[in-house]
């Protein structure tokens, strides 16, 4: 069996066997909120094992962050290998943050919240990547904007992004298609992390309220309030 096959973890059937452990290193100064939302969604589809560690490169990580991944452990599951998916979150002094590792032998560490989110979004069923090419690429385009214009952008780029968002959300309830997608999750996360959630224009505001009402957003929402 070639090593890269282990990366082909899409779909419940392929997730059987030894636990697939996704390691995410991330800086405690900016928790990647989209990760917690996606984790909630993954828990609905897979037996997930979440664990949180603090790396020796950082100190004084707030307690809230150390307890941020609920396991949803069922009482009949005792071994890690009883789970289909593990997420090992490590608070660590990394730049750029976060970084994701699955396969120590073959892959290049994945950088950036947007790309970590894409990987988790490919494990979720149906994978966003398996949607039609236009929809999948529209999602990626919003995810790119969340990452490069909002999270990493300057004030001018952020303002421009908000205008695009507001215009889009004036005509649609969600960023892509007729329901919640990866695009909404990553954009929501980026707006919160850059402190823009409060002063958004009306259409964006309505969309944010809709996001806040989603059960999967609750744990992330709690982190923004702590």
């Amino acid at each position, binding site marked *: 069996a070639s090593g890269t096959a282990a990366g082909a973890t899409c779909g419940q059937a392929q997730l059987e066997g030894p636990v697939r452990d996704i390691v995410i290193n991330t800086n405690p100064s900016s928790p990647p909120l989209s990760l917690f939302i996606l984790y909630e969604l993954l828990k609905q589809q897979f037996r997930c094992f979440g664990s949180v560690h603090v790396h020796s490169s950082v100190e004084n990580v707030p307690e809230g962050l150390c307890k941020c991944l609920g396991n949803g452990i069922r009482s009949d599951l005792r071994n890690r290998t009883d789970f289909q998916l593990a997420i090992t979150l490590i608070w660590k002094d990394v730049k750029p943050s976060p970084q994701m590792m699955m396969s120590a032998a073959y892959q*290049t560490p*994945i*950088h*950036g919240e947007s790309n970590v989110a894409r990987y988790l979004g490919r*494990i979720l069923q149906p994978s966003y*990547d398996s949607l039609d090419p*236009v929809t999948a690429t529209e999602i990626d385009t919003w995810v*790119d904007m969340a990452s490069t214009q909002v999270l*990493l952008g300057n004030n001018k780029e952020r303002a421009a992004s908000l205008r695009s968002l507001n215009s889009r959300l004036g005509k649609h309830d969600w960023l892509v298609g007729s329901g919640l997608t990866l695009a909404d999750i990553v954009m929501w996360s980026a707006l919160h992390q850059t402190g823009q959630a409060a002063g958004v224009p009306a259409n964006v505001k309505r969309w944010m309220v809709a996001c806040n009402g989603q059960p999967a957003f609750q744990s992330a929402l709690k982190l923004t309030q702590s």
Partner: protein
Amino acid sequence: MAATVSINPATPPIGVLLAVEHLKDSVPVQVQEGKNTGLKVNGDVTFTTVPSICRYLARLAPGKQLYGSNSLEATEVDHWLEFSAGRLGCPADFGDAVQYLNQVLGPRTFLIGHAATLADFAVWGALRSNNLWLNQLDRGKAPPHVTRWFRFLEEQPEFKAVAMALPAKPESSRSETRK
């Protein structure tokens, strides 16, 4: 119906042109000159960035595996698309970005797997249009693994085809420096 990509010939999106050339037998795409880079999909949707256009074209021909062969490889492609548009294009980060690329390419012929993907197209395209890089390469100052990878891709058919359509490199960087 053939898709139409418009490009500005003064600042050609090399990564897109490489994808078009690579996929030309399975995805008919016309390239026309225009003011801005863009691919209009329908009345509502136009993709205007190199990563988005590349992604869309690759998804039209999944059998060509330009997006890798599994979820992890696909995400590695995303990682490099973002790298090519981000760190590599930022002059302040350029030196570190090339060193990072060099370290990654030590054990690799291609960035992902054993054939060219969007990752190679996008990163190569970003370097090819970067004068800092062309200058380093010309003076023999570019790190060895990136140099090897860059020159190897340059020899591949789709890269040769695209290079012919590009504005010439600055004169000094065309003569190969050999040790």
